[in-house]
């Protein structure tokens, strides 16, 4: 396999990938289907912005956001059946159970742990200890600017954390488990070792004060952009969208079995951050995962970072019990 030169790198030397938007397949079917899968993403984004901008205070609550989030994901799950990107990513019962287990962990045990050691809590404690207030100057900005700043601050931090995970072995150990997924489905973003899920959620947003409505807008915009990272639906995503935002195509390359392709497209929502730092590759991949697509069981996903770390430490510092072969005389 020769691969394709993108900047200074050769992408696709280890595993087949598609590079360049002109080579990515388009939605096939009648005019309504093509229209729907072309404008669905922007229409949802603008509808979400309008809803959360104008919703009365009695409706604009976190509980409404959670309800909309669940309903939207259920709808996208149905879209995976209607217009899958790849048949080889079809959601099976076993995959559904595995994914939901991780979603459930996120809503229960991880949330419980977050009550004590999330970055929000740590920053809150820091501010209280020094009797500081949150930086309140953002609250005077227009709502949409505040919402963008909330998202951008988080995404910028998450870009470097994610890039760090791909470049520093101890962090990679925690993140590698997520790269063992072999297909993209709507809940695959939740799959990973709990240590990584904690690390990837770290941010400095807690230092700043924002209006509650701005936070809700940020949540809705983030969902309307980020939810497509792990999804098995083919869209004709408009060019301006894929220039600014992360897409399934970008993220499938990131999960590709090709080593160089996996070291690209780190941002969660704003792919322009990758464009700024030269890590963006436009294209898509079907063959995903590690070790040639080996599927990891939940048990291994839970223990892998620790067992691998132990193996590495033993190799580096452990006693050697090698016997020296003495040639017979």
């Amino acid at each position, binding site marked *: 396999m020769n691969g394709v030169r993108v900047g200074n790198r050769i992408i696709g030397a280890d595993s087949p990938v598609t590079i360049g938007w002109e080579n990515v397949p388009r939605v096939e079917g009648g005019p309504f289907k093509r229209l729907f899968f072309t404008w669905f993403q922007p229409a949802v984004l603008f509808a979400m912005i309008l809803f959360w901008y104008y919703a009365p205070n009695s409706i604009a609550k976190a509980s409404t956001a959670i309800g909309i989030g669940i309903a939207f994901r259920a709808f996208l799950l149905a879209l995976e059946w209607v217009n899958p990107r790849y048949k080889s990513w079809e959601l099976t*019962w*076993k995959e559904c159970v595995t994914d939901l287990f991780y979603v*459930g962990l996120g*809503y229960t045990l991880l949330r419980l742990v977050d009550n004590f050691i999330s970055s929000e809590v740590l920053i809150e404690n820091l501010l209280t200890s020094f009797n500081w207030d949150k930086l309140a100057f953002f609250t005077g900005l227009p709502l949409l600017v505040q919402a963008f700043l909330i998202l951008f601050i988080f995404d910028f931090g998450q870009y470097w954390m994610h890039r760090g995970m791909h470049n520093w072995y101890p962090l990679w150990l925690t993140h590698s488990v997520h790269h063992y997924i072999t297909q993209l489905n709507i809940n695959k973003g939740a799959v990973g070792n709990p240590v990584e899920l904690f690390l990837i959620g770290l941010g400095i947003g807690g230092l700043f004060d924002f209006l*509650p409505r701005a936070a809700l807008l940020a949540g809705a915009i983030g969902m309307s952009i980020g939810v497509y990272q792990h999804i098995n639906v083919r869209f004709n995503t408009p060019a301006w969208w894929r220039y600014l935002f992360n897409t399934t195509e970008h993220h499938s390359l990131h999960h590709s079995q090709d080593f160089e392709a996996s070291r690209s497209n780190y941002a969660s929502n704003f792919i322009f951050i990758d464009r700024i730092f030269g890590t963006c590759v436009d294209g898509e991949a079907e063959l995903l995962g590690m070790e040639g697509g080996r599927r990891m069981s939940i048990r291994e996903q839970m223990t892998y970072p620790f067992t691998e770390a132990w193996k590495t430490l033993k190799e580096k510092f452990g006693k050697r019990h090698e016997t020296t072969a003495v040639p017979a005389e």
Partner: protein
Amino acid sequence: MTRMVQSMPGGDLPGTAPHRDGRSWMRLIDWIWTVRGELPLPAGQSADEAFARLDPFFREPGTSFDQAGRSLSFTKQDPLAQDKMSIYDRGELRVESQPGGGVLRYWMTSKSLLFCFLAPLMFIAFGQIIVGVGMLTKPDTEQADKKKKDEKEKVRELHWIDQMLGAPAPEKPKKDKKDEKKEDGGKDRFSPTSAYVFAGLFALLYVIGRILEDRLIRRRFLRSLTGG
């Protein structure tokens, strides 16, 4: 990645064990993780022909199998997501002769089914842990909630652009039932509701999976045997 393994011991398939067999008590519960079934073979089809038709099921990565005479046993280690038998870990298939013709009997176990069956219990336990931790941390959360309440009572104004566009202005929060509940130890931060919802979801998923996977494998085997 296919290699030969030892055939399963014992004369009968576990699914056909007589009632006095020492393992028969297991039959009361092993339906949770075991899928059994039997399919009539097309007229004149021999055991070798039947297994040859089913061969692609066992030529998947991570699958080991051993065919000896009229029986075939298999094990699977980390099967691919799209493996048609990905939920099964081990099992045995046997061709038996009956007066009406040949019959394929199968018995397969699944850790995935067992996991899904136990998952509701696990999430109920998570719910109890959340409630327990909430009770233990009550004094701390009272202080944190008080600080949050003070912050919430600050009245903020919208930017003039938002006022012009007609966005609703932030309200000074009223003391409602939710706030009262928060003052009572910040209990909704330690609510077990999500855990119980997931317990219910997994119970539903188990029922779906137990019925669906049973039917799917039956249909797939039948299709392969008849060449449909």
